[in-house]
């Protein structure tokens, strides 16, 4: 999995590509933890190139949603599709997040 981060003030854009499985999910966790520790409150996650997610990835997203909410922020999911959307929908995790077509649209909404 590739994890690319950029940041402007308290908003960070994290773009994911590839497969988020039990082995790679911790890479996403540690990238986001570092951002939150450094004052980020809103995580905009680009998911259009993410092809796979398992329950370990869902766990990461749920933990981040709780952590950012506690800071008055949130996690915004962008471009979710295919199998990843199937997993989020099947577990009814999708309604817990704000969804956007693009990271630009998500950033503009904050």
């Amino acid at each position, binding site marked *: 999995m590739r994890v690319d981060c950029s940041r402007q003030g308290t908003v960070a854009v994290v773009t994911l590509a590839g497969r988020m*499985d*039990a*082995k790679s999910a911790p890479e996403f966790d540690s990238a986001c933890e570092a951002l939150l520790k450094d004052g980020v409150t809103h995580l905009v996650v680009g998911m259009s190139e993410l*092809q*796979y997610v*398992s*329950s*370990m990835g*869902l*766990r990461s997203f*749920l*933990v981040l*949603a*709780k952590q950012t*909410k506690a800071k008055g922020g949130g996690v915004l999911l962008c471009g979710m599709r295919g*199998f990843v959307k199937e*997993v989020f929908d*099947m*577990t*009814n*995790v999708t309604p*817990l997040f704000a969804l956007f077509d693009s990271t630009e649209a998500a950033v503009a909404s904050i």
Partner: protein
Amino acid sequence: MDDGLTWLQLPAEMASLARFTEFAREGAKAAGLPESSFARLDLILEEALVNIFRYAYPAGGGQAIVGYAVAGPNCLRVDVCDSGREFNPLERQAPDLNAALDERPIGGLGIFLVQSMAESVRYFREDGRNRLSFQIR
């Protein structure tokens, strides 16, 4: 451990996940599963294996064993075994999928996904082994 299945045994650790996934994909191709089923196969296998990697052998070490067989037209059977402590994941209570974020459980989603995505799932305890057997189309 014959049963007409093709088997692979590897250390019960995260580093084995990719090889097990590759191995099960060989079964998927042999069974004629459509490529659109591969991600579901990967997920079911991952959830079963990660449970073993994390919980089956509290003292460390131990092996995980995966077997596959063609179960019918476009149907693959996969068995995931360990000889660690007894654990039937199917007995786990289903997570509350309607809870709000603050109350939403973080765990239990893996086995829920397995049960949702597999055609069938069964658990056996035999000869000191846990055996989770599933079929996928």
